[in-house]
């Protein structure tokens, strides 16, 4: 009983640290996805106003960006980010799938494919919500203020 009692606080603390690391990773990836959407829109702009070869870059970068919504679901689960954030992470992934599907139908239904940039706004909006909300949740975590104070004290000394 004693050994269990001795181990428990340590293992609990370790679990907390691991969860916090996943949450920090989640926040980082959420902001990275938001930045990625902006870059993706910039690449589309380069293709429209510059050379059409940039459509290839836009497509490839888009597929690369697809790893982020998937990673957000996985890391969100590991970091136990809560139901509102998890729900919207799933929605983000669903919107990403829709985004790819909209391009595939451009031959048969171009007017539907034209919703591709509209869906991009939805992705941007949702990514912004997730990035801000997860950052705020991380800051509100118990002990975050104490940690900040401690690091400030260390910096002063």
């Amino acid at each position, binding site marked *: 009983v004693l050994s269990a009692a001795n181990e428990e606080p340590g293992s609990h603390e370790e679990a907390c640290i691991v969860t916090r690391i996943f949450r920090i990773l989640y926040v980082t990836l959420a902001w990275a996805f938001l930045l990625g*959407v*902006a870059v993706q*829109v*910039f*690449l*589309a*702009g*380069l293709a*429209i*106003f*510059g*050379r059409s070869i940039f459509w290839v870059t836009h497509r490839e970068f888009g597929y690369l960006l697809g790893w982020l919504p998937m990673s957000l679901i996985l890391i969100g689960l590991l970091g136990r980010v809560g139901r509102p954030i998890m729900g919207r992470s799933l929605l983000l992934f669903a919107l990403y799938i829709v985004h790819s599907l909209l391009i595939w139908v*451009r031959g048969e239904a*171009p*007017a539907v*494919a*034209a*919703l*591709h*940039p*509209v869906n*991009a*706004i939805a992705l*941007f*909006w949702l990514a*912004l919500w997730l990035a801000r909300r997860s950052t705020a949740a991380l800051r509100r975590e118990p002990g975050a203020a104490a940690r900040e104070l401690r690091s400030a004290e260390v910096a002063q000394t």
Partner: protein
Amino acid sequence: MTASAKRRPGPDGFAGRRRSHTIFLGLAWLLVLTIIVQFYLAGVAVFVDRSYWEVHLAFGHTGVAGAAFLALLAAAIGRLGRRTIGLAALLLVQIEIVQTLLVAWVGEAAGWKALHPVNALLIFWLALGQARRAKALPIDFHPTGIPKLEVGEDTLEPSNP
């Protein structure tokens, strides 16, 4: 009549401000909608017919800029506060000046022009912020942004509390 009595808006002033607030709220959401339509028109120009760039251009100067201008007007008439009026003015400048400059007047560099859709994302974000702000605005606030005063002081007196 004293000077302070002249300054004090009566029940009509309060009702007028409330009407302006409602109109501003509607226009703020209308602006968000026009931006979404504008993105769709860009999509139609890319995926359906290039001639829709003309529609995109015309709608930008009329529909989107018009909604932004009317929102600014409603905010100014209703004296909805400096920040609200400032944000509405910033949106109009972004839509009518910055967006046009990025496409038409910065030379032939594609890098600058490519910032046009990125800036459109920023405009969408600002417009969304304006719409949310409009929804959260209290009706009986002080136009300069100072918290509302107690009834009985030189303040707005709601006709229907």
